[in-house]
């Protein structure tokens, strides 16, 4: 005779257990839905608050250049959009090459404790809060730019036709160039760390194959690693761009806070984020509505950039053809 299976120990009544299951699933589910809805709520509230401006100016808001608190007319956020784009462009131009250099060095050219320590050092840059970057830039970088860098730039490049208008004679140190520079420093830890990760994903076999064919270290990197990791690196750059677009404190302390359209690298300006920080609390209802629409634009661009970046970084690393 087959022995009967051991009697299961007494359980809660099935109805109660099922109820608890539903409560747990339902409760956590509700919180997950809540978390997901926060973004939707932000978007909804922002659009609702800027609806008058959206209706009134339509897509022209992106190119409208008048932001005049005196007459209470705000035809567009172009000054702030330009400020945002220029500072982010400078940040990428200066920060990406340095970040890539760091990533290549730490992932391809050194090993062991040097790599780990140096990597830790670069990551420490990420631990510095943005307000400290801003204060340091305000107290140390701005005077340095005003007294040393900007006069030099004006002297060397001021005479170049076309390009020279970017470097006029008046320079105060607080301008879009300085804001771009501090942003580039803030980008470095993010872009270099994510690029390093992408490069680390490249199979060792690729490197070995290139080395076996007689390539130097640099040629190995150039032909075997970088093409393979290029999607991830591009994603890293775009992630860095996302950070630069949304940065408020460091920009606010270095960009000079002017509502006029910046016309040169030494012009004062505002980014969308710094404009919101500076003007929202003392804004008339019309200005508040216009600022919120600018915020919607900023949010839209930043979210799009971040989503693309994450897709690229997390995406499948297709093996490209390795060119010998």
């Amino acid at each position: 005779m087959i022995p009967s299976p051991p009697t299961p120990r007494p359980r809660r009544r099935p109805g109660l257990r099922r109820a608890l299951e539903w409560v747990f699933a339902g409760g956590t589910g509700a919180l997950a839905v809540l978390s997901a809805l926060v973004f939707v709520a932000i978007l909804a509230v922002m659009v609702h608050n800027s609806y008058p401006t959206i209706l009134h100016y339509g897509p022209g808001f992106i190119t409208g250049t008048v932001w005049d608190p005196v007459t209470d007319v705000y035809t567009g956020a172009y000054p702030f959009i330009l400020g945002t784009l220029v500072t982010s462009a400078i940040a990428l131009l200066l920060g990406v090459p340095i970040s890539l250099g760091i990533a290549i060095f730490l992932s391809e050219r050194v090993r062991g404790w040097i790599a780990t320590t140096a990597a830790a050092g670069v990551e420490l840059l990420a631990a510095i809060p943005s307000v400290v970057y801003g204060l340091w830039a305000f107290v140390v970088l701005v005077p340095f730019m005003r007294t040393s860098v900007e006069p030099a730039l004006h002297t060397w490049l001021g005479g170049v036709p076309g390009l020279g208008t970017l470097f006029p004679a008046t320079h105060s140190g607080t301008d879009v160039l300085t804001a771009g520079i501090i942003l580039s420093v803030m980008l470095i830890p993010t872009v270099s760390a994510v690029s390093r990760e992408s490069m680390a994903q490249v199979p060792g076999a690729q490197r070995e194959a290139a080395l076996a064919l007689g390539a130097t270290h640099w040629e190995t990197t150039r032909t075997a690693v970088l093409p393979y990791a290029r999607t991830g690196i591009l994603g890293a750059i775009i992630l860095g761009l996302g950070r630069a677009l949304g940065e408020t404190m460091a920009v606010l302390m270095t960009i000079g806070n002017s509502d006029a359209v910046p016309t040169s690298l030494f012009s004062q300006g505002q980014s969308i984020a710094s404009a919101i920080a500076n003007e929202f609390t003392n804004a008339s209802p019309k200005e508040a509505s216009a600022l919120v629409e600018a915020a919607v634009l900023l949010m839209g661009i930043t979210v799009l950039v971040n989503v693309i970046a994450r897709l690229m970084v997390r995406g499948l690393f297709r093996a490209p053809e390795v060119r010998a």
Partner: protein
Amino acid sequence: MPGTVSIRRRVTDWTTYVLCLACVVFAIGILVIIVSSSVQHALPAFQGSGVGLFTRAEPLPCSYAPGGIPCNDFGGIEPVLEGTFYLMVLASAIAIPIGVLAGVFLSEYGRNPLGRTLSFLVDVLAGVPSIVVGLFIFSVVLWWQPTIVYSVISGGLALAVIMLPVVVRTTEESLKLVPQSTREAALALGIPRYRSILQIILPNGAGALVTGALLAVARAGGESAPLLLLELQPRIGFTGWTHSIVPIPLLVYLWGFTEPNANWQADAWAAAVTLIGIMLALSLCARFLLKRRLPGSGM
């Protein structure tokens, strides 16, 4: 002849090595410059107040004009340490429970298109600039209860929104790493699903959860942009949940950027150094937890 590399290629190799090294030196150099610069600017405050910097309240407004309070006192930054504490406690109390439970749901029950959409939306939230979060909370609280627009509550809500995606993401990722066999084994033993999650799977991922919480706190602790909109500076110190408050990063801005007095500026630098120290400590803790490979932290 096999084995020889042309001079040109060797030079290129060497040049790129040097350039990349220069980039690393630059980054480390900037780090050293910023930290040492901050310490140097903060020295007068540390020398002037010593340990009192962390226990005393802010100095009285002083004046170099005759008849005013003389400017020889550095006071302290204790009120903002208090402020940071209350603000972070509120923000964590909101964000961590919600975030962990949401992450649990997404990992355990959400492996379907709907769950993936929710997860995606939470990721999107992580990309929203912090100043926009501040704007959102300002608008909502203004509509709901205008008198608490400038308060610990609204500041805490804004920081909680910033912390939430970090907590959800790390919880979800770490729980997903728990092998499916563990879940199946638990169910095979007759353990109800909710109990298996609470008593078996969560403890397995506990290390990463703590790391996630630390990272979230580090992220929110350094934020000052949303608080520019949500706190009625320059009142500092905790006077009630419905009153304005100033945490450390906001003080660095207020006393470093909007205050002409040199002593108060030195205090701002001291606050900045303290903040860097706290961020470093949190980073190191998180790193340490990852390295030690506490259960579930295998990332």
